[in-house]
């Protein structure tokens, strides 16, 4: 295990804005002109280096369809970061992002989760100005970036910025690679993790 922590990243937004493509571009560097619509949720993993520390990213890709809201929202638990994607060629996808912000507020469990707004598909004819995207991100106090999964523009940077911000947020993440959010049932193991962490475990009330 050569990474210091595992971070859980959610990618959410309307259907067809390019969430899966962004993740594919980031994790493999590939681009498919067409990509089957995600069913439910999908998962990708990548180890990334930020500020000289290696972190493992567990990236949860979600389906954007209304019918999947219940399923996808149950995966928001314990996420460290969220990427909210809209399509710059589709104004409705930005307008709808408001609903996703609310969704995130209701179902995310960490109170200082870091969010990044991504305006995707800047290779296409633009129907949403950069200022509109900025305004949205500013209103919700989120990071903002524009990208193209097709040309890879902004993709790497988007994840770097997000992870950097998460690492800089005190109390949001823990050291010791835990197996995503699954707690190992063996209490010895749990104890050892506690001891190796930054928390002082010696105090017993």
């Amino acid at each position, binding site marked *: 295990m050569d990474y210091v922590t595992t971070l859980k990243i959610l990618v959410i937004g*309307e*259907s*067809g804005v390019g969430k899966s493509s962004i993740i594919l571009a980031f*994790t493999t560097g590939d681009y498919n*002109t*067409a*990509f*089957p*619509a*995600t*069913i*439910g*949720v*999908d*998962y*990708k*993993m*990548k180890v990334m280096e930020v500020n000289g520390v290696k972190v493992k990213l*567990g990236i949860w890709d979600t389906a*954007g*369809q209304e*019918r999947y809201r*219940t*399923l996808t929202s*149950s*995966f*928001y*638990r*314990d996420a460290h970061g969220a990427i909210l994607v809209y399509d710059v060629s589709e104004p409705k996808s930005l307008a709808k992002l408001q609903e996703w912000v609310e969704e995130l507020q209701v*179902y995310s*469990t*960490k*109170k200082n989760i870091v969010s990044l707004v991504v305006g995707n598909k800047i290779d296409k004819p633009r129907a949403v100005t950069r200022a509109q995207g900025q305004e949205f991100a500013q209103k919700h106090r989120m990071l903002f970036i524009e990208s193209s999964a097709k040309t890879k523009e902004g993709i790497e940077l988007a994840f770097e910025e997000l992870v950097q911000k998460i690492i800089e947020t005190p*109390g*949001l993440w*823990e050291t010791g690679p*835990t*197996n*995503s*959010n*699954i*707690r190992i049932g063996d*209490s010895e193991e*749990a104890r050892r*993790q*506690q001891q190796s*962490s930054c*928390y002082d*475990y010696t*105090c*017993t*009330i």
Partner: protein
Amino acid sequence: MNEEIDEYDIYHQDFTTISEWEVFIARIEEVLNEWRLSKAKIPKGNLEFTKKWIGKSEEIKFQSLNFTLSYHTLECELNTNPLKDNKGVEGGWKPSTQLHNGIWEATKNFMDDEDGSPFPVSHWYGLKQYLMLYPSQPLVEENQIKLVMSSINIAFANIDCAVPFFLKIREHWQQCFLGIYEDSEFKTSFDTIHLKRIPNQCSHLNGLANLFKGKIASPVSLEPVLMSAKFSYELKDLEPFVWRPPSQTNEFLSIDGFDVEKLIELPFGAEKNPIQSALLNVMWPRFLENAVIDSASYSDFDPLMAPTWTITIKLRENINCLLSDLVGKMLDLLDDNHLLMDTLGLSRSLGILNPLHKITEAPITISKLVRAAMGSTSVSEFKGPIPDDLLMSLLYYIFPDAVDDDSHKYPEDLQVEMKQSDQEPKLCSAVKSSPAGGLVRRVSLVAARLLEAGGLPYLAHLWYEFTQELQYRWERRIRVPGVAAGPPGARSCLLHQKLQLLNCCIERAGVEAGAGGREGAGGDSDDEFYDCSEEEGEEETCERPAAAGRQERLDDAVMKNGAPLYIPKTQEPPPRTEDQVAEDAALLEAQGGGARGSALRARLLSASLLSDMEAFKAANPGAELCDFCRWYSPRDWRPEGGGALGERMLLPGNPWSEAWAVARPVPAARQRRLFDEQREAQQLLQWLRARTVAGVAELLLPGVLRAGAARASAAGATGGAGAAGSDTRRVLTAAARELAEAEKAAARAGAARVVLGGAAEGCPLEAAARARLLAAAGGALPPPARREFSLRVRDAGGAGGAGAPHVLRAALRQDLLLAGCFTEAAVLL
């Protein structure tokens, strides 16, 4: 000079006959040199100091004695450069001046204050640096003291030490120190005397003044002696200030007097008085010797007329607090990995060892217990350690709907609190909550108090009855009360989620029973169907006789074939608790990150999609995938030619078209169910029964901690930001620690407030505060618990300003502590 080196000229000396004493002195010198404490080497100038004491130490042996030699100094301000004042040094700055001024300034304080240094000498004499030789065994013999002290004198002189040097003498509990400081002009000696009884001439100020002047034995007349006095009175024993322990009883356990109010009232506060001492200090800060008469027979000191009154409070370091004890007992269980039901020897009969084994024993429920209490004949039931009457009261408190008594009903509207964003941090806010006043809180509190009262068997018995009652409710389709409505939400604690899920099961099973539909829920599971009522669309016409399971029209949309497009009735996705979601996530994650993994995940998750497609086909006969997309995923539908698929839906082998191809037109009502409430409920109940001790504690602690936090907040305790995290136990432990700190702080503050009233500690009291204290003391102050006098005078100043100081400080309780410091000018012949 002849530079040739003759081998006999090489410096040599024979140390074989050196005495142990010489070795001892040499060792002290060696250490002092190493620490660079000679006057030549120590930084000079007017250094700025912080208030933090730092130090270093070395072990030294002499004969059979072990000493610790330590150097203590206030930390220098980082930004002061010792060299910048070099001029100042030449221009008259002398270490002895600094020492003398320090000694003089220190007399403004009293001996019982503290400055944070390990030994009181720095405070008594206003020192910023000192050396201390501390014997591991008390140094009581006069000969030994003299020998060691002369060693110090020699070492001090040999290296021209720049720092006062002290020796701890007498018993360790006696604050007796001898010390010296010497330079070319002055020699200062520090001396302490401790007497267990106060001799007559020292019991009053005039006697002490005579002693002081006799000790100085100045050949020339001195300036008048400056004095200060401080009388201290113990306050904590005064009737209005007497500390009373918080009432804490197990009274709720008594059968006749069971009182839920007593049960839910969590204990809070310290077990013992958090105040070690609370002193009223009456002070006369400065007067001249001839202004006051204080002799054995008469005293001018009238505390009521004293210019300054202050209160000082000393708090106990370690206090046990009641709420923390309660929480701590439950927290201790987190290490116990035995099955809780083993405590009662019930694991086997409950089928916990073998989860597939059917539950053989009939559940004991409230109704059965009631029957038993009424004298029914069925008595083969398990008998736990908690007396029946008490148990019934507790169960009725947790399940108030089981009895016709409205006194403990749950509130109508139970909400899980939203997570706070930027408000001030609340105690234990990192711990997941459950609705305040809800069932989880009640069962957690009852469990915690039973654990305290009767240990693990009581807890196990309660848990047993609790799970049996849940089983009974499941079988009879009676909702669990005091639980927030709706599917499990990840915001609430796991136990609450489990109960929400159980209620979902109960509701669904109830709907089913109400519909009077199928029977044989335990039959072939393949034949289980989801039951939603099977009303057909009203405007059903002859065009598509096969249509079934319509919900409503999708606006005025039509299908590619021109027929109106209907939204079908669908199965809701199954409710999941957070541990189940975590299992799902682990399973999905385990498929790997590649394209193959994605395909497998799509397969695992396509049950819902397939169900929706089948319902859609049933509601919309003749529908195509593009019609389905128009409803389900509008961005993948295009209007061209009455309806077409978007690019990605046309990809060969994409899971959507594959699922569409196999979907049969089946309305939701006749589909295989996605959520099997029978299996779900049975698993859940067995899961609750089969918890380990630690597992149950983990389920109950959030409720206990949140209730404790509410109790602490009500008592005025405030909290910091607890550690949030995904590791439940770590969060619980951190929250418990946070709560314990808050309770301790609140207990101390509360106790201090009783004594202080509105006044601030250590500050001169206003007239009203003085009157309040006097009234509390019954109009007159009791005899002082401690008196302290400080006497000081300076030699007539030489050319350089103020002369050398002489100080005598006396602290009188039952015993007498005299600390003196006298300076002689070196006579230059």
